[in-house]
């Protein structure tokens, strides 16, 4: 029984991480890459075996050992293999394997290859650990570890300041979601007394309705942070400064799917709470629309794909919200294949041209046909053109939506899937189509970079064949075929978008510049290019509250000393003849009003000072608040 050995999957990756980090420069650059690839190949083979045996037998496996004891609670740690986790394992280890091979060549000239492969191996190990975990606490630990790897790898070229600030931004923003998730887990633990998935599912019904809603919303908050849903999506575009294989592996194929995986894991809990699922559905579909809309006008080759990722994860979350769990996971599988493929292709384009701006690219079709054709398959799948995988998963999501019977959601979904083909074929045409004015570089990439792309294209192309057996294998049933007219209609909508994109960007029959002259379109264009200004408004509003300790010292100087001085002055003034009451009295009041306004506006200035001491002050204030609450509520 191969499933018993599932815990071995992350182990070699962690060992390779240790070797690469400890030996670092002593390791030959090549060796580090081969070691990591070997480890991930082992994980991939084992995951495939587990996937096959799960697919054939449909059985589950749950192994656990006692982790530690907390009072009378025994906390266990273990691994859980069921269809959901074995699918996720396959996705993670497959994409990891291909990306590792690709990186062997992509990072060829980089001096810190051992660090790169070490951190990448740590990521793959933690991600498989996250998938295997059988309880919330263990999952949260790996959840944080993948966040750490994302931080380290976005900032891999840390000598660039955008990389450093991008990684910090990603880390801090996902942290908001992580804190929500941790509070959700702890809230559940206080009520149920266990972290395990099975125990939680069994006794979750005993909780009161409000508590259930709050817990589920907190867990969804964690998914929002990790999976870059509105309103925490701002970190993904900035994360694109990392190396391209990292973007493909972490920010497209695996880590950002962790939120979807978490939601699929807690699906037994979600189905009991219609309020939460409808909130999830609206968040998901709005994110999908937002991502697709913002992707329409971006110029950076990777940022378009980043917004597209946001949009497609929005689709998956939306599918969870309308109870189409198997549709969501099938889309997850497809998306991992085609988005990783597109990112790797973007990596090839970037290494060959050395540029990031797609408006300055073109003529790529001439460079060997393999990569362009593979990329075309990925784009078609992303756009949802039949008969590729993307079409099947979109149809499954649509079916699930129809079963909910909410026509607002249905129309929003169709609108969002209309935008997908437009932005992706804008991307494809600008890079690959013929353009005499633009030259291509003369570097070319070797087979190690091309092979993973071709492999992913094969998977993306053939995935659609397995949709019905996939649906049967998943623990949730989804009935097909009852909405044939709508299915055809939505396909026609997608094809319209596709034709439009071809007409505009490939054949250039419609002049894009003339459309842009229209004022309405100009405004729309501006909003799309700046991603609805969400990021800018966060920077302007959010992180400029106030610095307490500076304020406190000012308060001391100004007010406490001021009061003392004022008493002295008062005595002096009284003893002398009160020469002008106006000067002290009226002006005093006027100045006082002005000062207090100044004071209260300085309150709202800065919370984020960067001084550790201020943060410790906030901890103290928080402790005092908690104590006051406890005392008042009679603790």
């Amino acid at each position: 029984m191969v499933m018993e050995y599932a815990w071995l999957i992350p182990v070699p990756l962690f060992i390779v991480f240790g070797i690469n980090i400890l030996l670092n420069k002593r390791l030959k650059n090549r060796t580090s890459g081969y070691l990591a690839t070997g480890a991930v190949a082992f994980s991939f083979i084992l995951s495939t075996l587990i996937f096959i045996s799960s697919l054939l037998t449909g059985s589950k496996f749950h192994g656990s050992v006692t982790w530690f004891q907390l009072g009378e609670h025994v906390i266990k740690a273990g691994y859980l293999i069921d269809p959901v986790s074995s699918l996720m394992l396959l996705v993670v280890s497959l994409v990891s394997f291909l990306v590792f091979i690709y990186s062997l060549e992509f990072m060829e000239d980089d001096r810190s290859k051992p660090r790169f492969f070490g951190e990448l191996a740590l990521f793959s190990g933690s991600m498989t650990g996250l998938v295997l975990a059988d309880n919330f606490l263990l999952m949260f630990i790996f959840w944080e570890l993948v966040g750490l790897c994302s931080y380290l790898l976005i900032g891999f070229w840390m000598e660039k300041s955008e990389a450093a600030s991008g990684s910090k931004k990603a880390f801090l923003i996902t942290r908001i979601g992580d804190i929500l998730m941790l509070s959700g887990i702890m809230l559940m633990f206080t009520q149920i007394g266990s972290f395990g998935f099975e125990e939680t599912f069994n006794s979750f019904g005993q909780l009161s309705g409000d508590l259930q809603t709050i817990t589920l919303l907190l867990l969804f908050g964690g998914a929002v942070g990790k999976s870059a849903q509105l309103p925490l999506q701002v970190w993904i575009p900035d994360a694109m400064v990392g190396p391209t294989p990292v973007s493909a592996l972490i920010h497209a194929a695996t880590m950002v799917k962790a939120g979807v995986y978490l939601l699929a894991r807690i699906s037994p809990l979600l189905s009991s709470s219609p309020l939460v699922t409808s909130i999830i559905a609206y968040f998901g579909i709005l994110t999908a629309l937002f991502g697709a809309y913002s992707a329409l006008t971006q110029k950076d080759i990777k940022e378009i794909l980043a917004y597209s990722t946001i949009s497609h994860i929005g689709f998956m979350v939306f599918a969870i919200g309308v109870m189409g769990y198997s549709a969501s996971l099938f889309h997850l599988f497809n998306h991992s294949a085609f988005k990783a493929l597109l990112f790797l292709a973007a990596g090839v384009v970037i290494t060959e041209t050395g540029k990031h701006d797609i408006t300055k690219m073109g003529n790529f079709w001439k460079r060997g046909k393999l990569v362009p054709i593979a990329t075309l398959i990925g784009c078609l799948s992303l756009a949802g053109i039949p008969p590729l995988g993307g079409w099947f998963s979109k149809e499954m999501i649509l079916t699930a939506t129809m079963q909910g019977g909410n026509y607002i959601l249905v129309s929003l979904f169709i609108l969002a899937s209309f935008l997908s083909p437009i932005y992706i074929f804008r991307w494809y045409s600008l890079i690959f189509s013929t353009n005499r004015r633009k030259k291509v570089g003369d570097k070319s990439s070797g087979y190690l970079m091309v092979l993973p792309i071709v492999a992913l294209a094969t998977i993306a192309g053939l995935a659609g064949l397995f949709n019905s057996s996939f649906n049967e294998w998943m623990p949730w049933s989804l009935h097909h075929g009852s909405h044939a007219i709508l299915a055809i209609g939505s396909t026609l909508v997608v094809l319209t978008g596709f034709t439009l994109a071809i007409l505009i960007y490939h054949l250039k029959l419609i002049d894009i510049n003339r459309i842009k002259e229209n004022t309405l379109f100009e405004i729309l264009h501006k909003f799309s290019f700046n991603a609805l200004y969400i990021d800018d408004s966060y920077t302007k509003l959010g992180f400029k509250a106030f610095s307490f300790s500076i304020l406190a010292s000012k308060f001391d100087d100004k007010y406490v000393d001021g009061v003392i001085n004022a008493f002295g002055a008062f005595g002096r003034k009284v003893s002398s003849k009160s020469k002008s009451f106006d000067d002290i009295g009226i002006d005093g009041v006027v100045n006082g009003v002005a000062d207090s306004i100044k004071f209260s506006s300085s309150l709202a200035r800065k919370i984020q000072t960067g001084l550790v001491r201020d943060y410790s002050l906030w901890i103290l204030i928080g402790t005092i608040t908690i104590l006051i609450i406890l005392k008042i509520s009679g603790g």
Partner: protein
Amino acid sequence: MIAFHFLITSIGLVLIGLYGVITLRHPIKILMSIELILNAANINLVAFSTENLIGQGFASLVIAISAAEVCVGLAIVYNLYRLKKDIDVMEVNALKW
């Protein structure tokens, strides 16, 4: 022996240490304040390990941790001194996003 002076000492040390952490500006002095807080925790752990020795065992672990913390903390202070020649924590705000 009655717990009075143990409790008073530990509460006093915690409050003094906290006051130091939030008002002082010299990093070495802040480290000293942190040591005071750790000592306060140790006093309680030791004083109330009446039934068994777990509290005392834990206190010895706390001592080891705080030794490690001082070691790393002082190394950071020294590095700060080499880089900036001015060890005022108000100047060290690179943690800002």
